């Protein structure tokens, strides 16, 4: 019976290990992200326009889609498009520079 008890206990060890994080204590804070707002979408659009590579076809197209999505209320998707546009423009800029 002792063997059976040990087996049963060891079966639940993974349940104890599973939620444990790698050395980071969980703390309760009421934190909120500020990069999912329409204002941030607009600031990204302005940032894209200020970049030299924004006239390239792909960044331009992604930028247009991003602005349109934000204007229609799909802020998160719009921000994602604008970020991709900025990333491409920045890489072209880095390649060109």
């Amino acid at each position, binding site marked *: 019976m002792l063997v059976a008890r040990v087996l049963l206990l060891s079966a639940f060890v993974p349940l104890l290990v599973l939620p444990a994080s790698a050395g980071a204590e969980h703390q309760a804070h009421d934190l909120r992200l500020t990069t999912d707002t329409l204002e941030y979408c607009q600031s990204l659009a302005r*940032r894209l326009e200020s970049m030299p590579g924004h006239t390239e076809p792909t960044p331009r197209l992604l930028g247009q889609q991003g602005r349109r999505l934000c204007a229609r209320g799909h802020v998160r998707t719009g921000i994602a498009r604008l970020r991709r546009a900025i990333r491409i423009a920045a890489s072209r800029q880095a390649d060109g520079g």
Partner: protein
Amino acid sequence: MSERLARPPPPPRLLQSAGFRFALLFMAIFSVAAGLLVAVLWWATAGAIDRQTVAAIRADTLALMDRHRDAGPLGLIESIEDRMAQDAEAVTIYLLMDRDGRKLAGNLDHWPEGIAGDGTWFRTELHHDGATSEARLHRRDLPGGLSLLVGRDESERTQLDIVMAEGMAWSLGAILLLGGVGASLVRKALQRRMAPAMLTAQGIAAGDLARRVPVSLRHDEFDQLGATMNAMLERIEALMSGVRSVSDAIAHDLRTPIARARGKLEEALDAARSEEGLRAAVEEGIADLDNISRVFQALLRIAEAEAGARRAAFAPLDLSAVLSDAADFYEAMAEARDQHLETDLPDRLDLVGDRDLLLQAVANLLDNAIKFTPPGGKVRLSARRDGRVAEIAVEDSGPGLPQADKDRALDRFFRADASRNAPGSGLGLSLVRAVTQLHGGEVWLEDAQPGAEPPGLRVSLRVPLP
């Protein structure tokens, strides 16, 4: 009372079933195996994501600190803005505060209160876009009173944890269900296979000793158990039959001497004319009762030898000396009957056994031989070593025994028709057989001189040597 109190309570009824306990053990083994599998899966997936996240945060933090060292606060702010602007996956988290608690850059709405100092790692809930997710954050303090938080959204890992926990819960449920069904099946199978043995045992307990366990052709453990039980029952039946026949023989053979003693005493009571006559009758009665007592002693001795109780008293002995003693004792008796007792014994014959019982056995043989040999006859006691066996033989020139009587001569209370009138109880040869078997040997009867008339009788004992 105290013993009853000290006894542990019996296990629950379900746990009393061996089948259920077996199934429980298998279920536990399956659970451990499933648990180990989940642990390995977690280490390979969620654990890997965790380690990647920590590495990414650490590299990002070091890069930002380098930037601050190279380009100052403005360069750092610019880098943070760049990183946020190019984060198409929306997983990065930054917050840079000055010494006065003013936000300089980042995408957190405020500095979390109560977090420890430089180098702290922590996890917290994060609200964004109407949803809540988990985030891992790392704090570093920079020169100039700046405080930096760098982190990553861990929604993906949280989702994976949920999926794995759900999977584990389902697996556990399935294991419990299968274990329960398995326990029931194993229990029923065990009960079905044990049923014949149990029914047989119940039948025997109810008095039907002829019952036997049916044995199938599978030759599995249950069949082996059934066969063993059947062998045991055969043995018990044989022993009980022996006990019954002995009881019958005792009742039959002792009734006569007891009735005779009673008759004599009764007759003396009615007919004795003097005190001497009465005294003689009482002495005769006592002698009869002594004979009965001797019969009981002989029976007890046989029972003792058959039970092997005296095996503990075995000791090394010289069988030649024992036989020589017996011959010396009976030589005078043979001479008184005008018989000749011959011996043919080796100088020494070492044996491990019970000296008293061996002497008694040989004495019984010599007593019988002298008793049934006519005057002028011959009795011979011999012994020899035959390999690892000692052979002892007592032969006489008496009338011998028909074959049918030879076969039964070793049974208790057997008396050949020709010897009905001779004194004796019919237990002498039974004791010889019991003593021989106690020493691991065998005994048999044969004609001393086959074909001759009279053929005589030869009783031989073969006892293994150490």
